[in-house]
């Protein structure tokens, strides 16, 4: 999975990970995107170890990436080898076989949406100071916008009657429709957006158009069993 890229969700950009390496004194970065209930996809990894750390946690079902995803907050482990980690003992043991000294995991969230996760590692302990952490948060946020923007544009590009200048993010209806659909179907916000995207795709319409129909109450989704 090193240098892994995928067309799932239309995301294929290893440069997304590279931004973190340019801006921050870390040695590697890996990023995964959540597509809702479908299995998540590794978008990029800057090296084999970064990819391995992500994969390991995914396979074990434990580690800071899960904690960050669950709490929707960054998990900062500047001295990961020194402290015991009762929440992820197996992953911690596995880490001891690597050169990793510090792990910083940032959830990629937008409002109530869980877009994905980015994991940064370093072979030197305690590398991120407060300013670096603020920078990492900004980068994580930019990345979340960027990823969602692309996800929403997949359908825009495929359908007609596009207004290419306006970012789909500037369309409040998409976020409002996400809120309505999560109630209609009793699903998470992330899944609700996925439903909107899937519906748009299968009907050859933009997400914005589908969102407009939902907000105007012309379209309603049924609960899932």
């Amino acid at each position, binding site marked *: 999975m090193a240098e892994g890229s995928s067309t799932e969700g239309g995301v294929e950009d290893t440069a997304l990970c590279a931004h973190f390496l340019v801006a921050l004194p870390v040695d590697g970065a890996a990023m995964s995107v959540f597509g809702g209930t479908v299995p998540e996809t590794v978008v990029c990894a800057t090296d084999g170890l970064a990819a391995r750390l992500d994969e390991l946690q995914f396979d074990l079902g434990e580690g800071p990436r899960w904690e960050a995803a669950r709490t929707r907050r960054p998990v900062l482990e500047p001295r990961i080898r020194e402290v015991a980690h009762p929440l992820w003992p197996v992953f911690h043991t596995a880490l001891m076989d690597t050169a990793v000294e510090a792990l910083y995991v940032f959830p990629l969230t*937008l409002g*109530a*949406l869980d877009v994905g996760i980015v994991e940064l590692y370093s072979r030197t302990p305690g590398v991120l100071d407060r*300013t670096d952490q603020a920078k990492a*948060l900004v980068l994580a946020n930019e990345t979340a916008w960027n990823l969602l923007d692309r996800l929403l544009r997949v359908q825009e590009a495929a359908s007609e009657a596009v207004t290419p200048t306006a970012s789909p993010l*500037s369309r*409040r209806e998409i976020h409002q429709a996400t809120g309505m659909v999560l109630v209609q179907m009793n699903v998470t916000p992330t899944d609700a957006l996925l439903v909107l995207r899937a519906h748009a795709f299968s009907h050859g319409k933009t997400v914005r158009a589908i969102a407009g129909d939902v907000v105007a109450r012309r379209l309603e989704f049924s609960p899932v069993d």
Partner: protein
Amino acid sequence: MVTMTRASLVSAAFVKLTDTLVGEYDVLDVLHTLVEECVHLLDATAAGLLLADPSGELQVVASTSEESYLVEVLQQQAGAGPCVDCYRTGKVVTMGDIASSGDIYPDFKAAALSQGFHSVHAIPMRVRHRAIGALNLFRTKTGDVTPEDAAIGQALADVATISILQERTAHEDAVVNEQLQRALNSRILIEQAKGVIAQVSTVSMDEAFKRLRADARAKNHTMHESAEDIINRRITL
């Protein structure tokens, strides 16, 4: 007498705003109070505040009405219009007569006129060397704003900027960006919560926003916190 009344109105507005900036406060609620005060103080019909998102595009974060007609006009000029010019140049942009503005911004012109707005005044929100967004004042009548109104408008825009950049450490660009993004992210959460309220209680988006804001105020929460409770279905409004 008129100027006395005016002066006391202005000082009352600033007292009200600065009072809200003490201790923990809700940035989005402050920004909403601010656009409402703008309309009262500056004889405007409607007002809206836009912030630059991570891609540099302007997003509406507060407006005197949540109705789509106003949000659409505001958002329209995020592509091309006085607001984006104001943000890019960091300078005030005034259009005293939108109807006779020629073809510089045809889409904005059509959108503004269709809602009865005939003049607009865009004020930059500045942090030292850069602008982070702009405050827009719309009027149904034509004409430029008076120098006094322009000064009050700029002072209100500065209060908005200060309210967003809460920490004194905001001299670092990374911290400025973080706080700017926090406000934008809260706005997305609020839109999602509006959708939940609209669906659960079969009300309009404007009414959904009013209920959200009222809940936050009643519980002394931020709108962000109330929105989270609504989306997680812990409360129903």
